[in-house]
């Protein structure tokens, strides 16, 4: 009887693994071949945006979803990542790797400063303080006209040098660039959430005072989570700047922050793939809405309310419940 059970288990397990492997393979093939499958460049453009903003929302998810710290200042970190390579290309050099490393460094620096100020504060006050800090950065890029171009922003980041004799151009190349960094961040995120530190983040989200009693340095954990999340958001900003070829204050704005928060919550905050799902849905809606109206912020606000009212656990949360129901578990 026991042997039979084991055999059955083995039989079941093997096709499961094979199926998983096949799923990975097909997903990878689909992602790589995507620009050649879709009927028009429009879909490649849309996918590139989804990849970049998924990177952003995955970064935010580490803080908002896993550590339970709702930041409304991450738009500024995205913006920092976008503005630095833009400034660099305008005043110094248009090189992708130099732009990226300085962009990340700036996102790191600002994250550290934000975290030093905000991490001690929790709950709704954390939301307020991150919002205020984000607005400081926005005001800086908006107001410092002589350097940042103010409202007009900075143009001319197109075709950065990635190799001595090779510069990026064309929609497909940017798609693959975005895909590469999306996959890297996907892997990083997976590593982090399964790691000891990832478990500590969730513990802090669930019961901060208990974590302290267990011996965790909660402040340090939150600080690290904030900075990791901020640098990933900055990375998304860097890719975004190179992809669009110009930056303006909207890239560092409150709107960027709330959009990202919505992407995380809609997809399912604190789930691995939730932010990707949320980002995809939001950007598709945004593109459709743009055909009919310019009142995107209004739609965004409505979506926010609807999600909180009817799907507070997001798409992934709802799916999880549905799947468990189908399997007969509670």
């Amino acid at each position, binding site marked *: 009887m026991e042997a039979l059970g084991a055999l059955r288990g083995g039989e079941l397990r093997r096709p499961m693994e094979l199926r998983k492997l096949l799923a990975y393979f097909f997903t990878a093939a689909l992602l790589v071949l995507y620009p050649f499958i879709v009927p028009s460049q429009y879909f490649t453009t849309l996918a590139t945006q989804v990849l970049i903003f998924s990177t952003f929302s995955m970064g935010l998810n580490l803080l908002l979803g896993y550590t339970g710290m709702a930041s409304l200042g991450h738009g500024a970190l995205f913006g920092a990542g976008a503005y630095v390579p833009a400034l660099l290309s305008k005043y110094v050099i248009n090189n992708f790797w130099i732009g990226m490393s300085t962009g990340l460094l700036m996102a790191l620096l600002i994250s550290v400063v934000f975290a030093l100020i905000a991490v001690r504060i929790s709950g709704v006050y954390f939301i307020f303080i991150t919002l205020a800090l984000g607005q400081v950065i926005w005001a800086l890029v908006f107001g410092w006209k002589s350097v940042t171009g103010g409202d007009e922003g900075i143009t001319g980041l197109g075709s950065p040098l990635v190799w001595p004799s090779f510069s990026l151009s064309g929609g497909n190349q940017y798609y693959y660039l975005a895909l590469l960094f999306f996959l890297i961040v996907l892997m990083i995120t997976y590593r982090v959430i399964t790691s000891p530190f990832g478990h*500590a983040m969730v513990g802090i989200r669930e019961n901060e005072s208990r974590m302290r009693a267990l011996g965790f340095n909660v402040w340090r954990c939150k600080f690290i989570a904030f900075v990791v999340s901020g640098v990933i958001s900055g990375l998304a900003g860097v890719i975004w700047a190179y992809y669009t070829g110009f930056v303006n204050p909207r890239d560092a704005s409150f709107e960027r922050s709330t959009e990202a928060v919505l992407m995380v919550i809609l997809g399912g905050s604190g789930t691995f793939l939730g932010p990707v799902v949320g980002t995809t849905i939001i950007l598709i809606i945004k593109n459709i809405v743009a055909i009919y109206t310019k009142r995107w912020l209004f739609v965004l606000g409505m979506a926010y309310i609807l999600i909180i009212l009817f799907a507070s656990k997001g798409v992934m949360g709802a799916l999880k419940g549905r799947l468990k129901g189908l399997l007969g578990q509670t």
Partner: protein
Amino acid sequence: MKPLVIENLSKSFEGLQAVWDVSFQIEAGERVVIIGPNGAGKTTLFNLITGVLPPTEGRIHLFGEEVTHLPSHRRTRLGIARTFQITNLFPELTLHENILLAVLGTHPRQYVMHKAVTSFGPIVEKTQSLLSEWGFEENMHTLVRNLSYGMQRQIEVIMALACDAKLLLLDEATAGLPPGEISTLSSMILKLDPKITLLIIEHDMNVAFQLAHRMIVLQNGRVIAEGPPEKIKVDSKVQEIYLGEEGVENA
């Protein structure tokens, strides 16, 4: 080296004197039970010892080191752990995850983020062995909020054990339990490694006298009596303020 030395400890909250000039010491391996009526300052005393609250006056030494101004998590790392009067777990996480976090709390690799937690053999094994040692393997994948209250009280103790504490503070481990489950928990406490020093707040007098090597009686933030259980049982002051009714019942 004494696990705990308290000198002239006081704590006042805006005029209310919760703990008043309390001094005592605990020897290694000793089991000391603190009793006293509600509002006597027992839990406040625990909060001072574990660093949740700063004292107004006085000093605290853990294992020979002065910790009066050390944050909670640093004290935990010196080898002190506590349970809570009001169940304080991670209700939305599984039992396994709860114990895992308790094991991680004092583990030097808690900041590692590039390797899965499952790749750390000692962490995984310790979590597993705690679960099996206390007979909780079956429930390890259940969310803690779905476990019975009695189980949750036991998990409080197991989580305190997970960080290899040498000094364990149990804040009314049996609080709110029905009589049948009180004995489960007290026998669990009796089964603990005798090398672990225990400081226990207990309302159930049977449990208190069963566990104590020594007792400390608090009233209005002051120590009013201290000594072996036999002595406390017959102490007139204690009978008057605390055991009064029960003393009469037993008589």
